[in-house]
């Protein structure tokens, strides 16, 4: 009797509390080509043309009004034509989010990735004096809290990860931690500015794989009708375990415009400037300042989507 009453009560109250799980699965393909004044900052490989293809998939689940789950995976292949530099990466991530209402939300994400390069690539593409690696394998755990108050959206994130890079046939384990804090302010319905500070630390037994970076990002986002425009300024200073110091400045302008319901055109221009200094008293030859111009035009095709 009691069981029946309890079951009935449960059944009758459940519709309000336990909505049917809603989901969406979507797939997209990014394909584009462009021009770069170098393969990466300080590579010294000269002007080159490039293309990149990135298929990706994503699953979104609404477990409850306050609980959302997303899983994503992508594969990316890029190739520089003249220098024959190519790269292949795979990544997958699982993210759970707790929506505390319109005021705040928190998320926890686990991600894994693998990337391999045909020629040596810097362990960090923003650092000219970082060592070259032929592949990396990484696992990361990150959390993000977003709080909306006083007309701003405040964001705080923490990242911890382990990475293993292959450099000159040797495997180098690394540990990464990062802390990010920022704020976004909408200036109008379709215009916003955001600023973020990022402190990251990569630790390794090898001093040239060890570095600490402080970066400041300023982002302006503007939507004009269906055109999404973005401009980002990045200022970064890094100190490597070898004693070298680097300053980097990068400005990126991007635009995206839907061409059809499923296809969008995306364009990016980025200019990067890097200034590096060896450790005081180092006998190494001085590091040259380096710049990089990069222009990229791509089509993003969302070729399949299903929701329930």
């Amino acid at each position, binding site marked *: 009797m009691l069981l029946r009453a309890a079951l009935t009560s449960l059944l009758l109250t459940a519709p309000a509390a336990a909505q049917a799980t809603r989901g969406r699965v979507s797939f997209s393909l990014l394909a584009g080509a462009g021009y770069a004044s170098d393969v990466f900052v300080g590579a010294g490989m000269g002007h080159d043309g490039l293309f990149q293809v990135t298929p990706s998939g994503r699953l979104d689940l609404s477990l409850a009004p306050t609980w959302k789950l997303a899983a994503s995976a992508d594969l990316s292949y890029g190739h520089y034509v003249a220098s024959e530099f190519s790269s292949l990466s795979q990544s997958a991530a699982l993210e759970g989010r707790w929506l505390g209402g319109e005021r705040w939300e928190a998320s926890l994400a686990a991600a894994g990735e693998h990337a391999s390069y045909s020629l040596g690539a810097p362990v960090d593409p923003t650092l000219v004096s970082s060592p070259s690696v032929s592949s990396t394998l990484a696992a990361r755990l990150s959390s993000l809290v977003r709080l909306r108050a006083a007309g701003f959206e405040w964001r705080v994130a923490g990242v911890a990860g382990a990475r293993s890079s292959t450099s000159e046939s040797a495997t180098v384990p690394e540990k990464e931690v990062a802390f990010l804090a920022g704020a976004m302010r909408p200036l*109008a319905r379709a215009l916003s500015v955001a600023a973020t500070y990022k402190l990251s630390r990569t630790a390794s037994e090898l001093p040239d794989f060890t570095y600490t970076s402080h970066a400041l990002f300023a982002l302006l986002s503007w939507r004009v009708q269906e055109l999404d425009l973005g401009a*980002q300024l990045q200022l970064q200073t890094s100190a490597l375990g070898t004693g070298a110091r680097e300053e980097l400045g990068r400005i990126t302008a991007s635009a995206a415009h839907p061409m059809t319901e499923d296809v969008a055109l995306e364009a990016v221009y980025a200019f990067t400037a890097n200034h590096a200094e060896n450790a005081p008293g180092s006998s190494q030859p001085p590091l040259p300042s380096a710049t990089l111009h990069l222009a990229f035009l791509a089509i993003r095709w969302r070729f399949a989507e299903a929701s329930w």
Partner: protein
Amino acid sequence: MRARHLLAAAASLALGCAAPITVRPGGAEHPTVFRVSAYARAVVLSGTMTGWRPKQLERRGGDFEIAIELPPGRHEYRLEILDDSGPHVVFSEGAERTADGFGGENAVLRVRNGCGAGSSIQGEGSSHETELPMRKLILAALVAAWSVAARGDSRREVARADVPPPLVREVTARAGERGVPAADALAPLHEAAARGVPVDLVAAKVLEGISKGIPIARVNAVARDLTARLGTAGDLLRHARGVGLTPAADHVAALLDLGSALASGVSRRELDSLVEAARGAQGGSADAVVSAALTVGELARRDVPHDEAMSLGTAIARRGPRPPGEISSLFDAWRAEGGKDPHAFLSEATRRVESGRKLDGMVDPFGESPDRVVSERGANKNVEGNGLAGSDVGKKGAEHGLGPAERSDSARGVIPGVDDAVRGKGKAKGPKK
């Protein structure tokens, strides 16, 4: 046995809906089918189609089902699950609902192109279910004949102050079953007839109140309110016709819907402004006005301020009627997802209605926007910023919370520099146009 109960409960919960209810409206060749999947002793249906007498659904396997031939039009009903813990009123997911005037709600079913074998008033007696179709048919014919004659000419409506005998007999009998003096139960019907208001609609409300065990004084008060509202609704529909709007396709349903809107607090002045909005539109119709009023009323019942809901109502009046219950159902879904600011919902709904786009998909179930609304791209936007909830920028989920270049957990650059700018863009698909 106990395990079976648990399994049934678990299966229901796993389906995401504890007591799945399906209502398949009938048509010219098919009856309307009500089906409830629930662990229960019995499930009963009562409504205008049964004269508000409870009618038990037949058990079929683990389901309860009934098929009824219903005439085209607007029907109100309730499904009740009877179990050891008592009766529980249940509604199908997304069902259109309306306040019953007695503090509860009824579901609304709209049948189009039905076969017309049903009736809104069932005959007297409670143990004649096998006779029901014939009794209903006869009563329906009597009431319908009277109703058509009475509604054919508004001047005759006013002049006619009598109540059709079948209604008198039915209400008298039902009152007698409950020990209510017939004169008390019939009083609202006579008043409705005197005011030229369709008596069968008021009689249905009296029968509903008696069936639900409401004290007759309260039933009469509700019936008189309904009479007044139906009178106002009739005036408005005549006014709408007078200013050139296309008459309502279903006059009775329009009366009831306007009555429902008035009961929800929509004022005559607001109704007149909706008529003006429809009048200014090409092909303006009374149905658009009714749909707009019903929507404003449904939103008002959900504590949405009238002045905010009227912008959406005006858009509907101009652009044409929406499916009944569509917007209130979306609003409920939006609220369930944690939506707080009705302005965000109404602005988006208004934009979509005005641009003739689908409303389906405007509720964000994946938490990608703080206000739980999926904005239509390319729609005319109000460029005035109104805080974070009103901004289209930076609305996306956590993946967009920090730019790809800012996050340490983005994959190592495949094409250094490009990845930072491109990765993460457009992962969440925009709404379909």
